[in-house]
């Protein structure tokens, strides 16, 4: 134990470092190499959550593939062009995009430890997210009321599965957002709370990316064909 300590101290003493080329020193001190040790927790947590998000996107791609294959299978029922209201989709898109932007403002406020701005930006994020969700639920109710529910045709089943899955993610995100506001309020900018928040911000931005794919593939291309 004491021998290895001495070796470590020798290796990191300035006199020894000077003998090596700068390149070697850098690679041996980098995270995950030599004395660099594991990466900081902020990076490990963020990277792990990034892997989860990518697998979530892969899951969404299966729903997208299902929709793309079945979008013509209307079984004599209404088609996309007859059902979708582009105006409504435009407002939904604006809500979600602005919500993502407010979430970015909140991330900056958390990094600077601005208490008031964090809460205000998160509240705006949540409000815009809620507006999006309300519009979507309203759209679903309208569709079901006119007999175009998920059981009408394969096209509508895949539509409700894909858009509903996104809506479920937004709902979960809103619950998470409320939790984060409460935790920032009660516990302040503790390191673990901040890490949790940065995972939430990744989640929220990723949901906006998936919505871009939905309004392009489902609504805009659907209404054209």
């Amino acid at each position, binding site marked *: 134990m004491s021998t290895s300590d001495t070796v470590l101290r020798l290796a990191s003493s300035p006199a020894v470092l000077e003998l090596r080329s700068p390149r070697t020193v850098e690679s041996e001190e980098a995270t995950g190499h030599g004395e660099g040790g594991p990466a900081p927790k902020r990076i490990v947590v963020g990277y792990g959550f990034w892997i989860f998000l990518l697998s979530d996107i892969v899951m969404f791609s299966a729903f997208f593939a299902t929709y793309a294959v079945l979008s013509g299978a209307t079984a004599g029922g209404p088609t996309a062009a007859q059902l979708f209201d582009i105006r409504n989709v435009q407002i939904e898109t604006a809500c979600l995009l602005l919500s993502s932007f407010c979430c970015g403002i909140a991330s900056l406020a958390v990094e600077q430890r601005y208490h008031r701005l964090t809460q205000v930006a998160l509240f705006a994020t949540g409000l815009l997210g809620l507006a999006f969700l309300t519009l979507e639920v309203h759209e679903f109710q309208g569709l079901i009321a006119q007999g175009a529910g998920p059981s009408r045709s394969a096209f509508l089943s895949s539509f409700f599965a894909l858009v509903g899955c996104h809506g479920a993610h937004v709902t979960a995100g809103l619950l998470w957002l409320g939790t984060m506001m409460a935790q920032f309020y009660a516990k302040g900018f503790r390191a673990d709370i901040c890490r949790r928040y940065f995972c939430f911000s990744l989640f929220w931005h990723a949901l906006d990316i998936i919505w871009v794919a939905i*309004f392009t593939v489902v609504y805009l291309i659907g209404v054209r064909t």
Partner: protein
Amino acid sequence: MNDTAAHAAHDGTGDLAPGQQGESPKSFGAGLGSYIIGLALAVGLTLASFWAAQTNLIYAPGVSVALVALGIAQMGIHLVFFLHITTAPDNTNNALALAFGILIVFFIVVGSLFIMGHMNHMSVPMGQQMDMQP
């Protein structure tokens, strides 16, 4: 965190988490710039998408291709300006994971469309299938 690890995290040899803008927190204004540029570009591309879907100026069969291209561009904007995924050395792990994700998404979506499209093309139409049954 011992001091060598702290040192590595700040001298450019460390990695960045996805969503992290820089090694040390920048000022509020410096960070805001990225989000404002991202928002402006995203709004522009969204408006372009909705315009392309409703206009008659574009050759009709080409509209879907234009919409897909605009959609992919906007996803790229979100990744760079909101999620701060770059190709810099401190982002190698994030970018590689993303590249693998895109590969799988491509296989699932294009593969499904390709196989199901061919199957519909090759299979006997519904009406004739009924006639063939005893």
